[in-house]
């Protein structure tokens, strides 16, 4: 009885070990199962999903116009203080004074890509870009002005 149990244990153990080795053996002999992505080499084919949140950007159209009215909703919505909107008073043709953005300051180093600012923006002025290669040598480069120089507010956006 004891011997039966003793050898039963040995048999079961060896079997379970061999079953495990079969799994690793299978993968060793089936190299097409390899899942490694050779990242910097596959840049050309690597496409992020279009919802991927890599960085906040402000799209500009061909006339160098953006949609940001300077309402600061995104600044309030951002939990980290990543966004600073600097506004200026601009005198329009009809003589009225209007608030316009001077600089949309975006601190990439603070951003957690939570998407709250994009959701909060009433005029869809900012979107998430799919770029994720943010490494720089100087932290200062992570402070970005999203509106391009001399850009204007798009017509019809209020």
């Amino acid at each position, binding site marked *: 009885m004891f011997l039966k149990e003793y050898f039963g244990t040995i048999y079961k153990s060896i079997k379970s070990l061999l079953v*495990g080795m079969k799994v690793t053996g299978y993968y060793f002999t089936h190299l097409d199962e390899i899942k490694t992505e050779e990242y910097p080499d596959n840049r050309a084919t690597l496409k992020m999903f279009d919802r991927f949140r890599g960085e906040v950007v402000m799209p500009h159209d061909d006339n160098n116009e953006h949609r940001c009215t300077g309402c600061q909703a995104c600044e309030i919505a951002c939990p980290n203080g990543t966004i600073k909107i600097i506004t200026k008073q601009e005198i329009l043709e009809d003589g009225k004074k209007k608030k316009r953005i001077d600089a949309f300051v975006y601190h990439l180093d603070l951003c957690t890509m939570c*998407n709250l600012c994009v959701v909060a923006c009433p005029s869809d002025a900012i979107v998430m870009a799919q770029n994720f290669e943010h490494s720089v040598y100087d932290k200062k480069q992570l402070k970005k002005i999203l509106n391009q120089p001399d850009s204007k507010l798009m017509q019809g956006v209020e």
Partner: protein
Amino acid sequence: MRGLIEDDYVTDEGEFVINIGPQHPSTHGVLHLKVWLDGETVKKVQPHLGFIHRSIEKMSESLSYRNFIFATSRMDYLAAHINNEACALTVEKGLQLEVPDRAKYIRTILAELTRLQSHLLWWGCTGLDLGAVTPFFYAFREREYIMEIMEETCGARLTQNFMVPGGVMYDIHPNFQKRTKEVLIQIKSKFQEYDNIMTGNVIFENRTKGVGFLSKEDAISYGVTGPTARASGVSCDIRKLIPYSAYDQVQFDEILGTGGDCYARYMIRMHEMKQSVSIIEQLIDNIPEGEFQAKTKNVIKLPKGEFYQRVETPRGELGVFIVSDGAASPYRIKYRSPGFSNLSALPLMAKGGKIGDLVAIMSTIDLVIPDIDR
């Protein structure tokens, strides 16, 4: 600080103290365990916390009800969705907001996917902790598929922040259902392989069976929840007890074990993965049409009062307690995190075992350190 922590490096005859952590391969983060040893035998364990305290609770007090949710992704980073959902549910409870069915379904599917990926990662890490490196990679392969679903629909892989008060941030991606179904087929086909390489393995069984016993009474009195408690026979699945989101629409079993040892905890999680797959399968084709988000005011203000909501994360019961004074940000927030209570039972379980057992216990109670510390 000195006075608070038992200052007993002074030990009995033959005992000595080693510090496992804060930097140690098997604490999965910055947890510090002071371990009293007699040779290889663990006499006493004392967890020291606080190395990754980011004061998320305090931070939330100055954030609006829309904004504080994002920070909870960083608590239990393997269950970011579920944390976010818990917060959203609490806020909805306060607002007495009815969430559209579509949002509920999406939430449930995403939460179950989260549970699946968390358990997969746990499975890999358990292998790693016990010295088998290979399962880790197999687990990550399947987890990667789930991560792709998350990435496609939510836009982020780990800290999704996809839940907003009133629903979900966006509608699901057009590919979502197709991709999810493909992934489920993939994962289901791999369960057998997991069993082959780990579950049935004699070394693994010896390492876990009868190790780290936690009785039902102790589990209850230490406030242990989740798979860890269910392995001891405590029925505590919030999804079953107090169904939230769409859990009342699905059929699933609450897996209960009796062993209370590491092996039982392991098996509970293995079965839970299968249950998660079945829950997703039931929901994925039946997502109702309609809104994915209820209309909410721009500035959310909770009425004066206290609101509490519990959810089931992969590690156990997460409770969100909000005290509101009627302002636009919470007066006080308290998270009842599962990891903290589960960790409190570790000294009990580890006592009398070997160092190797301590590692096995730690990995089967599935500690995520930022969840413990917040």
